[in-house]
């Protein structure tokens, strides 16, 4: 890690107006739509599945106690499924951003920093 005294200098010269102008660019609107179309449903699904799990733990204890094999019951498996879902979302989001977000977003950033589409 290198540091220089300039690290506190303002970010590269680009005006607020230039950045704001990108907001109405069709490519930005498309980028935003692509991103939200992934994150919003995935987030809601993950939170819903977590809520179902908490509600089952509170109100469906006999169900959670159903033994699947040995001493492993449904509650433990559903609990572990929360780990699996979290890990899976992490991997899926990485793939999504690599395929459909990072390059597109970088392209818009370059455009803004180089003075728009002129």
């Amino acid at each position: 890690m290198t540091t220089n005294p300039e690290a506190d200098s303002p970010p590269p010269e680009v005006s607020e107006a230039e950045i704001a102008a990108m907001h109405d660019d069709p490519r930005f609107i498309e980028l935003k739509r692509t991103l939200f179309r992934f994150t919003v449903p995935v987030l809601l699904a993950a939170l819903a599945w977590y809520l179902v799990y908490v509600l089952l733990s509170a109100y469906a204890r006999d169900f959670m106690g159903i033994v699947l094999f040995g001493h492993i019951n449904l509650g433990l498996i559903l609990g572990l499924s929360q780990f699996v879902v979290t890990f899976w979302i992490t991997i899926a989001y990485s793939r999504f951003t690599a395929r459909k977000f990072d390059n597109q977003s970088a392209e818009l950033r370059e455009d803004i920093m180089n003075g728009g589409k002129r």
Partner: protein
Amino acid sequence: MNTLAQGMSDGNRILTIALFMVMVLITIGITIQGGRKTRTATDFHSGGRGFSAMQNGFAVAGDYVSAASFLGIAGTIALYGYDGFLYSIGFLVAWVVALLLVAESLRNSGRFTVADALSYRMKQRPVRTAASIATLSISIFYLLAQMVGTGALVTLLLGIKEGETFLGMDAGAAKVVGILVTGLLMVSYVALGGMKGTTWVQIFQACVKIGLAFVLTILVLAEYNFNLSALLGDAAAASGQGASFLEPGLRYGTEVAGDSLQTLWNKLDLISLGLALVLGTAGLPHVLIRFYTTPDGKTARKSVNWAIGLIGVFYLFTLVLGFGAAAMVGKEAIVAENPAGNSAAPQLSQVIGENIAGSTGGAIMLALIASAAFAAILSVVAGLIIACSSSLAHDLYNGVFKHGKATGHQEVVFAKFAAIGVGAVAVVLAIFAQDLNVAFLVALAFAVAASANLPTLLFSLFWKRFNTAGAVAGIYGGLISSIALVVFSPTVSGAPTSLLGEGVDFAWFPLSNPGLVSIPFGLICAVVGTLMSSESNPQRFASMQVRALTGAGAERAGGH
């Protein structure tokens, strides 16, 4: 049956202290190394923004996995079985919110603190003041819980019982010394090393605690030939609860026979806790400011991948350690040592060590796990201190009192003194509170983060109409409602387990966890506040959203 006291001769205590000293020396060395390269405000608050995704991921894990997770969750599982596991799941799933909505956008649109992002398109002073008060409240609640825990932990890990002395200290004196040493260390890390030093300390300590938890987990599983079902069976049998030990309901949302109202409150309390845990993480200032230490938004987001992997795996370890302690140490021995179960993991490590190499093995394993627990405390409290000092210096001192005109150097000097000041306040409060049961403060910190910080942060990133009045109303509404509801809950008065005991009773709110009410309340305050004000700044919103998603105009790392 094994208790820590039996295994704790003076020789063993000296081994524990020696290991602890080695760790302290290494971390102080790291801090001084990091501090030498700390010159600017960016260095102090954000570690120069040069950390890679993996480095920051480890530091986030070091910042997040507290002694409460390390000892508390393992202990809760050891005593109550399944319900301890429930707690850790909330702590983990919460990271999905941070990953999908917060990490990258926050890194791209702020500089040093949570208030930077919150106040971006608002009137600076009122929003910075509110955000700073929320940051300080959350961090100090959390800090106090950790510090009081430290005092208890020191006596526990050194195995000093009532009436015994070690190096001339009885249990009470050892507690105070533990709190003082922790306070001194955390302030030194922050004041000497800034965010850079603190980050490396957190990376080192994440390796220590996760590594040692891994070793212990493997050793426990090896005792059962890696058969989890057999381990669970033994744990259930040893608990005396049978199969219900492996089912929900022994700790949270307990059913009270013949009192259906109390049963209802208990279950709603569980849901309330679950909500605060899952929505709180993405609003914890000491976690959020870690994202500023990366060079760009993409790296910040990738560091969350690392953090989720490390934290998830760690909670899987605590599952094994908790059930392992239930099976191999036994409830009676754990409760005899510490009624809350915090000693379960250290006791387990001692038993495992003894099985492998006799009493020496037990002493070595115990000393190792004790130092991992200290690592957990130190790295978390250092993160909390830096969150407080950054917010005091950057938001209140510079943003509010100096109208943003203070130089970076002035801000850094102020931040260092702020770190010392906050550390001193925390030490004094912790010494006063050392005999109180302050475990509820962790849940309260999460509830405030979920009620005051998360809604306003998300609105400010994604809701065009959102404005100053909304942000201020949302923050104060969430903050005050969470605290007030806890004050009027059985946590503080009216129950045998209350802070003030059963004799004083001014509790009218039936839930110990305020989240179920305070999160929607904070949200409604933010919405109503917004709609009651005509202020609106579409251009600032447009530029903020473009910044958040593309990183255009974002703060750069040093060295360009």
